């Protein structure tokens, strides 16, 4: 006696539930958190280094580093003055809510002001797995090309802010900023965007100001 059972359940519901728990913990500790996603080499770690160097003297920062196997990125974040927790994903192409939960267990959340989570370098998979952070940020970079929003729509769609890194290279590479921004606007109209260069420091101020403002709002429970 064969029987069909209707389920209609989201395949990643279990992850989403855990992400909601992570979020509740972060809210409870009034700790502002962001999930930083990008392809390899876009400058996630450089952005974290710059952020830690600039804000480290006034705010308490922690970094959770997702990496396939090494601790190179965590070492860089620690050298820049942040408390760094390393998650080796063992080959998994993304962080998920369980991995972040394990990292949160290792931190004194209430004693921190900003938590930066560096996802695995990958423009496809991390977009599918919520972690529970307050904001998701995508780091694009000029040398990657202006076609990325057209090729990876899911990554550009769900994020709250976009960093365009390496703008100091604009004179040297063929990157049509207008085409890039039009592609982004179709997927995520009005997306908050920070064109900057981690190398020269140009544009970093707006990014830092946003972080500080958001962190303060979470701290004050606004």
């Amino acid at each position: 006696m064969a029987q069909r059972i209707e389920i209609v359940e989201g395949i990643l519901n279990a992850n989403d539930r855990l992400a909601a728990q992570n979020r509740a913990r972060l809210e409870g500790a009034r700790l502002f958190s962001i999930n930083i996603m990008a392809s390899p080499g876009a400058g996630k770690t450089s952005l974290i280094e710059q952020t830690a160097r600039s804000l480290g003297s006034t705010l308490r920062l922690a970094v959770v580093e997702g990496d396939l196997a090494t601790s190179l990125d965590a070492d860089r974040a620690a050298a820049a003055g942040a408390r760094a927790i390393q998650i080796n994903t063992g080959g998994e192409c993304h962080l998920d809510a369980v991995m972040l939960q394990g990292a949160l267990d290792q931190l004194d959340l209430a004693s921190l002001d900003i938590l930066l989570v560096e996802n695995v370098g990958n423009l496809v998979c991390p977009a599918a797995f919520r972690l529970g952070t307050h904001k998701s940020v995508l780091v694009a970079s000029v040398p990657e090309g202006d076609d990325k929003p057209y090729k990876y729509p899911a990554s550009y769609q769900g994020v709250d802010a976009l960093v365009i890194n390496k703008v100091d290279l604009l004179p040297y590479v063929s990157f049509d900023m207008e085409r890039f921004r039009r592609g982004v606007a179709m997927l995520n109209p009005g997306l908050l965007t920070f064109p900057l260069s981690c190398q020269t420091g140009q544009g970093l101020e707006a990014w830092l100001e946003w972080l500080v403002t958001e962190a303060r709002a979470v701290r004050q429970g606004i």
Partner: protein
Amino acid sequence: MHELSVAESILEITLRHAASAGAARVTDLHLVIGDLSSVIDDSLRFYWDLISKGTPAEGANLHFKRIPITVECLDCGTRYEARRGDLRCVRCGGERIRIVAGREFLLEAIEVNGSRPAAQADARG
């Protein structure tokens, strides 16, 4: 790719529903997957066969219902299936758009047979 963790999630949902229905075997799974997701059918089948071994869902067939990326133009109201790499309106070329389908990622239904004596009867059975 993350087909392994996706397969694990699917197995967990399947076994939970099969158990509550008191089913002995799961023969078929019906998945609904939007084209915005990056899951590859054959890769998912590969992992499914590996991880379902030794469970009541071993060897169950995976059926994929693929949902194309469907877009609505906010300028002229046309609904259309997006071309790869180009979401612009096929009628007016507009760029103010809304994606209305293509993000689905669901286990829609399972087919089961047999019953385990110890299990409670399912209301739908």
